[in-house]
Each structure stands twice: as structure tokens, then as C-alpha cells.
């Protein structure tokens, strides 16, 4: 009897409880967010802000306690261009980044389409081989890879910088998974209308795959922009140095304090394209990075 009576009371209680608790939780969250994570984030960002400010300081102020320059020396940003072929490094990085990205989008879309929609013999085996290459990082193979590129006479050429990075297992997996979601009926209908396979790919598949292609492009571009070890090996003359290689060399040549404003200006300029892309396309970037992780 008591049991039966106590039930309704228990049922009646919760609606009041969680509402209060939820409100309290929101307050806790807000305190943590604005009181802890915001200052922490500003601390994180301050490293970059400090670099920007240092790039604008007169040379004798870079190691002073003041964050703020006594006067803004915008001409520091010209120094990298006048002391080393910085413009050349920049153009090289852009060219290599853009071409590698385009190559990846093309080869990965083609291969992804092939593995997704055509039932030829050996397809599964080939796909497994592609999967297996994900386990081969550049760090393991770069010695023989360099020997190969050396034999091809590709050292200090753009081919050497670009072609070996022309496709990626992650990209193929990503495109295959995305194209798997396309209904076969659409493709069959186009075939009945007499469209050739290349035309179908170009006119139907590719336009529907712009989202994964963009995610792939962003990840590949960012990785290429960052890449240091391979360009250091195959692009070590001034005509083929990319930004990371050039920047590291500038650092080595200007260890003293006088070189600091120039180095900071160069570093800030080197970071700018990917940083801007990231801020503008944050959602796409996050998608790309997450997808590259999910695929593992």
C-alpha cells in the first residue's frame, strides 16, 4: 500500500529537479568556458601574436620586455625578400601545394570511382593494397625513394617535389566511401541515355562529390604546405626551395638577434595562407581532418 502511494511522488519530482540541475550545469559550463578556457586560449594564441609584434619591432627591441613595439617597422616585412629569394620560395610553395592538391583530387576521385562502381576482377585485391600503403609513412621509405628520384634525375626539379606526392591512400578511401553513397540508378540512367563513362564521371559523379573533394583538397594542401623533409632532399637549390626549406635555412644563417625581425616576418608570412584558409573554412577543415581520422 505504501509502495503504491510513494510512486506518484517519485514520478512527480523529476521535472523540477533536472531543470534546476540543468541550469546549474549551464552556469558551471559558462564559468569553465569564460573563466578558464578563454584565458587559456588567449595564452595559446599569444605565441603567434608575440611573433607578429616581434616582426614589427626595431631590431634592438626584439629581446626587450615590451610586447608593444615603440614604433611599427613595417619594412621588416620587406627584409626576407631583399636578403634571400623569399618570393621565389613563396611561389614554389604555392605551385607545389596547388599542383599536388589538384593531382590528388584527380587521381583519388578516379580511383575512388573505379573501386566503388566497377566490378572488375582483382578490384578487392587492389583496394587492399591501397589500404596497406596507409601503413607506409614517408619516414620509412624516403631513403630508397630518394635513390629512385635521384636515378630519374628529378633532384632539384618540380617533378621530384610534386609527382611522388601525387596520390594518397586516405584520399582514395575518402572518395570511395563518398561515391559509394551515389545510387547506381543515376549512373545507369545516364548510360541508357548513351553517355560514356568519362562523361558520366565528369558530368554526374564529380559535381555531386564537391564536398569530399574540397575536404580532401584542404587536407592535402595543408600537409603539402607543411612538408619539410622531402622538399629538403629534392629541392635544395634556391630555385626549388619551398617555404619550410627556405625558412629553416634562413634560421640557420641568422642565429643572432639582428636577424630576428626578418625571421619573424618570414615565419608570419609563411603561416598566413594556411591560417587564413583555416579561419575561413574552419568547418570544412575540421571535416577533412575528422574524416582522415575516421578512415583509419
Amino acid at each position: 500500500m505504501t509502495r503504491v502511494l510513494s510512486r506518484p511522488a517519485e514520478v512527480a519530482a523529476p521535472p523540477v529537479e533536472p531543470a534546476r540541475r540543468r541550469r546549474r550545469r549551464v552556469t558551471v559550463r559558462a564559468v569553465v568556458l569564460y573563466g578558464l578556457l578563454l584565458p587559456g586560449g588567449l595564452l595559446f594564441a599569444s605565441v603567434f601574436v608575440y611573433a607578429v609584434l616581434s616582426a614589427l619591432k626595431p631590431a634592438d627591441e626584439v629581446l626587450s620586455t615590451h610586447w608593444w613595439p615603440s614604433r611599427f617597422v613595417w619594412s621588416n616585412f620587406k627584409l626576407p625578400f631583399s636578403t634571400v629569394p623569399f618570393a621565389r620560395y613563396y611561389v614554389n610553395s604555392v605551385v607545389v601545394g596547388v599542383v599536388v592538391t589538384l593531382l590528388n583530387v584527380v587521381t583519388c576521385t578516379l580511383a575512388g570511382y573505379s573501386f566503388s562502381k566497377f566490378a572488375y576482377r582483382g578490384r578487392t585485391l587492389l583496394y587492399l593494397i591501397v589500404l596497406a600503403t596507409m601503413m607506409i609513412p614517408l619516414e620509412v621509405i624516403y631513403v630508397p625513394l630518394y635513390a629512385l628520384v635521384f636515378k630519374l634525375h628529378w633532384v632539384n626539379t618540380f617533378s621530384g617535389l610534386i609527382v611522388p606526392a601525387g596520390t594518397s591512400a586516405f584520399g582514395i578511401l575518402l572518395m570511395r566511401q563518398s561515391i559509394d553513397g551515389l545510387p547506381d540508378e543515376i549512373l545507369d540512367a545516364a548510360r541508357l541515355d548513351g553517355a560514356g563513362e568519362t562523361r558520366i564521371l565528369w558530368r554526374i559523379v564529380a559535381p555531386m562529390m564537391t564536398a569530399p573533394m574540397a575536404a580532401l583538397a584542404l587536407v592535402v594542401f595543408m600537409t603539402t604546405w607543411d612538408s619539410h623533409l622531402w622538399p629538403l632532399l629534392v629541392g635544395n637549390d634556391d630555385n626549388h626551395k619551398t617555404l619550410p626549406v627556405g625558412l629553416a635555412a634562413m634560421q640557420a644563417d641568422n642565429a643572432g638577434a639582428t636577424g630576428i625581425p626578418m625571421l619573424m616576418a618570414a615565419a608570419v608570412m609563411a603561416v598566413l595562407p594556411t591560417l587564413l584558409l583555416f579561419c575561413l573554412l574552419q568547418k570544412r577543415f575540421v571535416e577533412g581532418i575528422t574524416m582522415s581520422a575516421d578512415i583509419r
Partner: protein
Amino acid sequence: MSTLAIRATTHRKLIGAAFAVPALALFGLFAIYPMVRVFYISLFDYDLTSSPRWVGFNNYEFLWHSEQFHQSLEATGFYLLFTYVPAVLLALLLAIGLDTKLPGSGFIRLLYFAPVAMSWVAISVIWRLLFQPDGLLNRVLGTHTTWLTSTKSAEWALVIASVWKETGLFLILFLAGLSKIPRDLREAASLDGAGPLRSFRYVTLPLLKPMTAVVCVMAVIRGCQSFSPQVVLTGGSFNTEVVNLYVYKTAFENARMGRASAVAVLLFFALLMVTMLQLRLFRSDDR
């Protein structure tokens, strides 16, 4: 099926297979062939210009006794442990705090994400300034540490810069993992009377497990690949010559391609084992 239709499908399959050729050709030449070669070259003494000389397992034997190689393993171990364990834990904590839609949270996320979009060499050049004896870090901390030019602190300097750089990446991944956990699941837990700690321990953390596995594998692989911060910040001096830098110097400064390949082979098996082990550990008690 008429012969015509059969011919049409065969034709289609051929074209379909042809679409995979560019990617496969690139893989064959620039990934699979070097992978096979790295095993082969590791058995030779090879300096790129003269013809390779067979030495059997001498390269491996040399590494077994090499002080410098052991030191590079130690340096990698130190870097891996003290960079990636804190970075992953910090990322997890930040993710829990930032997994909210309160106004301004997007901006705060961006502050932590930003280092992800910056290249390793550029951020190393920037950190070099902070690590100067009379640089910002010493001034803020009130210390007089010679960060980049003494044995104990150089390793820590690399760790500090790298934690700053890498946390954002893992944060992105953890946030993505959290966003896939249905909110009502956590709310159900709190309705059942579970406090925030308990619901984190028993609801969020188990559901975050697949992403945690991925993050751990990525962390180890990235740690073993580290190269640029060592090159720019210390040049490998003061116990910071990590394995990858050791391979680079062995192959391209001392022209010992065979010996460098032997290290690469060992690195490959180490990475393979770690990946397998972690995936198994994290998957086994899922079911």
C-alpha cells in the same frame, strides 16, 4: 544476355579499371617499390653513387651496438612520452569544456585550433625566439634557463613547443568524437542521478573509445615522424637527435644508405606493432 551486351559490360569494366591506373601507378612506383627496396638496401653498404656492396645483417648488428642509435631511440621515447601524453590529455579536457554551444565558444575553439594550421618549421622559428636566454619564456617564468643549449632543457623546449602545436589537432578529433555522442544519452544518465563525473566516466568515455584509439595511434605515428622542430630548434644537439633525424643524417650526411634503411625497417615494424597493439587494446572490450 546478348553478345553485344556482354561486350558492352566488358568494355565498361575495362574503362572502370583504367580509372584506377594513375593512382596505382604512383603507388607502385613511389610507395610499394621503395618499401620493397628499403628491406633490400638495408642488407647493403650503399652510398648512392658507387654500386651497393652486400653486407648481410651487418647494418643491424652495427645498430645493435651503436651508442648514437640507442641515444636516438631514447630521444624519440622521451619526446613521444612527454609531448603526446600531455597533448592528448589536455585535448580531452579542453574538448569536454569546449563541447558546448555557449556564445563565443567557436572563437575560443579557434584559438586552440590555430597552431594546427601553422607549419612546423614556421612555429619552430617562432618558438626559437621565445626560448632565447633573454627571451619571453625566461622573462615570464623568471628563470635563466638556456633552453636550447643545455642537455636537459633542450628536450623540454621541444616538448613545450610541440604540445602547443599538437594539442589543437587532437582537440579537433575529440570534439568530433563528442559531437557524435547523442545528447539524450548523457541527459538520460543525469536523469538517472549520475553526476557529471560519473556520466563522463560511464557514458562519455566509453563512447569516445573509438576516437581515442585513433588519436593514440596518430599520436605515436606523429611522434616517431618528428623532424622539423629538432632541425630548427636544436639541430639534434643536446640529446634531441630523434630517430628520424638520425636516419636523415646517416643517409645524407654520412652517405650510409644501407644503415639508414636498416633503421627505417626497424621503425616500420615498431609502428606496425604499436598500431596493432593499440587497435586491439581499444577494441577488445568493446564487445
